[in-house]
């Protein structure tokens, strides 16, 4: 009987997580559109739904825009191209969306101890679905599975633009996976664990962004490329590929691709928060929950801890999402050779260097040495500055030299 109740609880939790991720996606699109509009001197979508305030002011202008978009996409005509590989074509959006959703189970979204235990004796945390031993490996694996959806969508559409988009996506994701994995390896060495919650706990004293600054920068660049987002969005370069891999997709199938892309982006930001920015913890949260526990009991204390950590986690994720939008608003798309160059020639050696630095410091200094952490961060900054100076594209010398004309009279 207990078994079935556990299954039921798990199902409900999974439903909540999936809905939460979808809602997060919906509101991220609104966040991005409003913010991009601000960056571009526009107003942005502010019509669909607002709370009227006295004096003609409008609060939360546009908060129903995601719902309106969803309704619009639902009612659009659903077309399957005549020469498409029908079943693969129909399955591709699922292949894209499912990995994007299941990333979230291994990310500790906060710390809300439930008092229950799994059958192997580990405590259940309401906000961390699957505290698996190889959490970091799971995250890496699932984020890269997502590219299958894009690749088979490009192939099944039977359209050269889709095909090119799919091929580009595969090549790009494979190239940047290396740098991504190596940059995470630094964090794993720093924390000595592959369990995401232990990585978070190891950052209670000092966030990993300080000792692993180089790794953080590499992770940011590589994760942006991994989720094929601007400035690495060659997969859907409108000027070259119409829409890229999703050219032949319309209606809700397109929405699923869109959704997978954005959920993956948010998930990448969430992973960055987990690995580098201390997860859901901010100074003072533990003390607050202890104080509440002392006066109102453990349940209330746990709830306060859970909600505060979840809030802090979302806050940090939002800050990184702001960075994503900001970068999208600022930087132009890179060329394909530049993309490959950056991935293989710059980021991968840098990530290896980061691993070496972490290893050397790990041997020379005891765990948790603040001084060593700051030194590592300093070395990271120096390395980044040196790289950007040395690896910057050489400014082409003027091809024409002016010569005094030899009059032939």
């Amino acid at each position: 009987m207990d078994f079935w109740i556990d299954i039921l609880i798990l199902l409900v939790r999974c439903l909540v997580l999936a809905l939460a991720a979808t809602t997060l996606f919906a509101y991220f699109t609104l966040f991005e559109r409003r913010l991009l509009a601000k960056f571009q001197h526009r107003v942005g979508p502010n019509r669909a739904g607002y709370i009227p305030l006295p004096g003609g002011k409008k609060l939360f202008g546009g908060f129903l825009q995601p719902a309106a978009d969803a309704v619009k996409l639902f009612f659009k005509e659903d077309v399957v191209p005549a020469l498409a590989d029908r079943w693969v074509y129909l399955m591709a959006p699922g292949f894209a969306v499912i990995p994007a959703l299941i990333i979230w189970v291994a990310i500790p979204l906060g710390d809300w101890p439930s008092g229950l235990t799994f059958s192997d004796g580990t405590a259940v945390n309401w906000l961390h679905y699957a505290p698996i031993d190889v959490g970091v490996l799971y995250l890496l694996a699932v984020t890269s599975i997502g590219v299958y959806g894009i690749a088979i969508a490009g192939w099944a559409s039977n359209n050269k633009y889709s095909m090119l988009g799919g091929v580009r996506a595969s090549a790009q994701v494979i190239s940047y996976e290396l740098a991504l994995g190596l940059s995470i390896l630094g964090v794993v060495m720093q924390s000595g664990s592959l369990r995401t919650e232990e990585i978070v706990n190891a950052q209670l004293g000092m966030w990993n962004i300080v000792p692993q600054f180089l790794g953080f920068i590499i992770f940011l660049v590589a994760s942006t490329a991994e989720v094929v987002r601007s400035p690495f969005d060659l997969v859907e370069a409108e000027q070259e590929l119409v829409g890229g891999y999703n050219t032949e997709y319309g209606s809700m199938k397109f929405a699923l691709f869109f959704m997978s892309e954005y959920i993956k982006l948010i998930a990448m930001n969430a992973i960055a928060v987990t690995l580098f920015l201390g997860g859901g913890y901010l100074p003072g949260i533990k003390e607050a929950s202890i104080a509440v526990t002392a006066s109102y009991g453990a349940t209330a204390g746990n709830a306060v801890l859970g909600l505060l950590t979840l809030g802090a986690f979302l806050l940090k994720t939002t800050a990184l999402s702001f960075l994503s939008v900001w970068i999208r608003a600022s930087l132009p798309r890179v060329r394909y050779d530049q993309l490959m160059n950056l991935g293989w020639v710059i980021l991968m050696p840098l990530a290896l260097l980061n691993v070496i630095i972490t290893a050397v410091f790990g041997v020379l200094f005891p765990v948790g040495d603040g001084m060593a952490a700051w030194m590592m961060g300093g070395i990271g900054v120096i390395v980044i500055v040196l790289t950007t100076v040395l690896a910057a594209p050489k400014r082409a010398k003027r091809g024409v030299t002016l010569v005094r004309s030899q009059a032939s009279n």
Partner: protein
Amino acid sequence: MLGALIKGLSTTFKYLFKKPVTVEYPEVKRPVRERFRGRHQLRRFGNGMERCIGCSLCAAACPSDAILVVPAENNPAAPNSPGERYAARYEINMLRCIFCGYCEDACPTNAIVLEHQYELAFYDRKASIYDKSMLLVPVEQGHGDIPPVLQQLNRRPSPPAQIDL
């Protein structure tokens, strides 16, 4: 390269705090320029008479053939316009009109003028034809004196071809 990145990011960040240059259109409307060419108006003289004398020069000048003028003789007892004739029908097809302003240039009495109204959407093609009642300004909005060349209604000569016969 780092400098360029920071420069780019700081430029966009500065724009984040500026007021948007776009306006929320149906509520806020930008004024158009003085010489903007929008919807046409048929003007009147100061005494309320129609300026249009039904000469059809605007229809002849129109490159997209958007204007229809059907002239008629004025009733001498109660003339619609100074001069011999007036426009009994005056229609402009706003779907054909390209707002070039040639009709304005062709008009000898400055009767047709392109004004500043630009919200010209309609639900069907029939509604795109603006007739005289829609184009003509109200009586009290006339201006200007009738030029002497048009004030010869009473001493109209016999048809010139018949003078010598």
